[in-house]
């Protein structure tokens, strides 16, 4: 998944990803998703390469990367846990899950110092009849109470 992070590697990954998407119209979003899938985030060094490859200004690329919640500027923890805070989950006590995470010393939007967990908020995972909903490393969990969230955060679920 992750590479050494040296300029050469980032550059080569980006150039290859762009080559893979060459035929697509308006390819920047799929390219950014692919870069993030390989490198775990969109490093600063990727921006000039993307600008060069796609014939855009650096400001344009930077603007896109920062507009969307999904693109990270820093690597995430080994587990990324996203707690749904939208209305249907609020109605079932999503705020209790957020408080639980806070009490466990986790801050929304941040990665723990040891790099194990990143906790984020998300607005709706499309599981609104079986909330509160939580997603961890791409997997959806329904009817999550504090105890289950604890296991998800510990990676024991």
């Amino acid at each position, binding site marked *: 998944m992750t590479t050494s992070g040296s300029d050469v590697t980032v550059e080569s990954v980006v150039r290859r990803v762009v080559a893979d998407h060459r035929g697509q119209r308006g390819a920047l979003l799929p390219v950014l998703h692919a870069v993030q899938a390989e490198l775990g985030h969109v490093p600063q060094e990727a921006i000039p390469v993307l600008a060069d490859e796609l014939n855009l200004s650096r400001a344009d690329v930077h603007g896109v990367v920062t507009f969307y919640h999904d693109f990270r500027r820093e690597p995430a923890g080994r587990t990324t846990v996203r707690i749904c805070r939208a*209305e249907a989950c*609020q109605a079932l006590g999503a705020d209790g899950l957020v408080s639980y995470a806070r009490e466990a010393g986790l801050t929304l939007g941040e990665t723990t110092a040891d790099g194990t967990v990143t906790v984020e908020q998300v607005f*709706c995972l499309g599981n609104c009849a079986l909330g509160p909903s939580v997603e961890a490393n791409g997997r959806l*969990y329904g009817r999550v109470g504090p105890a289950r969230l604890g296991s998800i955060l510990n990676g024991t679920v």
Partner: protein
Amino acid sequence: MSDASHSAAVVYVPRDSAARSVGADEVAAALQGAATRGDFAIDVVRNGSRGMLWLEPMIEVVTPRGRVGYGPVAPEDVDGLLAAGLLDGADHPLRLGLVDELPWLARQTRVTFARVGITDPLSPADYVEHGGLKGLRAALDMAPSEVVAAVTESGLRGRGGAGFPAGIKWKTVLDCADELKFVCCNADEGDSGTFADRMVMEGDPFLLIEGMTIAAHAVGATEGYLYIRSEYPDAIATMREAIELAREQGWLGQGILGSTLDFDLHVRVGAGAYICGEETSMLESLEGKRGMVRAKPPIPAIEGLFGKPTVVNNVLTLTTVPVVLADGPQAYQDLGVGRSRGTQVFQLGGNIARGGIVETAFGITLRELIEDYGGGTRTGRPVRTVQVGGPLGAYLPESQFELPMDYEAFAEAGAMLGHGGVVVFDDSVDMAAQARFAMEFCAEESCGKCTPCRVGAVRGVEVIDKIVAGTHRDENLALLEDLCDLMTDGSLCAMGGLTPMPVRSALAHFPDDFLGGRRLLDIHPVNTRTEGTV
């Protein structure tokens, strides 16, 4: 379907992500394990969900009398179920009976969701066997203008929230002379409380492909984009696989079904921005830009994706089209009330005992949905309010539960149907907190293009905090009223324009939560302004 030996019993286990979120994969694995060990002859088929989500994981076994359901099934229940005679549909505390006869399902009118939960979503043979492609074949026998006329006549209105007539939008695109035109499906489904788009994509993906292909024929488009939010990895994977299969079947590509129609379809994944559900913002995002809302005109039907004429429709709009063409516009038109024709897929979520999908003709009351279908709250406490139509929709008090689900009736009551999401709250809800959240959400998700929305929402949070804290209450209430007016009138799109709706409704109906007793803000009928233009 897999081709296990003929004597094997077929057991359906949903692959829908809601069902998976409560253990469907583990149940499927337990069944598979029993089959692999040779204890039982079982052919496990992963279907979509029937939409009775409180029963998930709900499994179904095929018997001579029909499909018998069991649920909710935990993985540890599987051995006991098998021992009790699951494969013959035998009795067990989890046995629900013949699924098609369960009242919750039998009372519905399933048009768009007719196949969801019944078939194997990725089996082209199953699709055709259950009536798939009839609409497309009918459309290909017609001239594009006749297809457009049929869609217009059916009365089908866009299901993405604004309710704009689909036929009129299509006619605008058809009438453009450009060589290159696009069909874009809006599968951003960002509204809280809505999951029907996701369920139909995971449960009947060929239907969406068929609907988009019909749209392409109707307007003369050759390329289609399906913009799916990144929060839906299962829907993305299912649609990608279905598109591959459809290409192999000749349902996409050159000369579709032996006709002269060429059409291909691409999946694009969003990147976590609510505003990209707004159609012009979605087009910007598809072009690889920030999802900033475009001013209309020009309307996307005339200058849409890459400046070309573009149909932008919601998933449910496009998945309804095949049925309209297969059964004829009249059959669809005959369902519904007033100018709200056909069926709507209501999504019951939040604090509700029986949450899930209710597809029924327009005109059903909110109370019927919440009480008859939903069974009240999951916590068993009294229902205090429901929010209908997503985060920009109104909070309705019990006194409005007789409202019929109908675009016009809702607009008159200062509310909106939106995408059909119904989110239930019990009496523990703090409505000042919900009003504050509406402003917070707008501040977080605003595209930033216009001041009333970008700055107004931040100010809205502050002002609500002051009202609740009792700081210069009357002045701050007046300020909030002004702010709501300004956001309603001065925002470029409905993000800023409709955020006052949940705020005003909370203040009007639940003033006690903000201070004591007095009705705080008036609510006004919704004028369908920025949204709903072609």
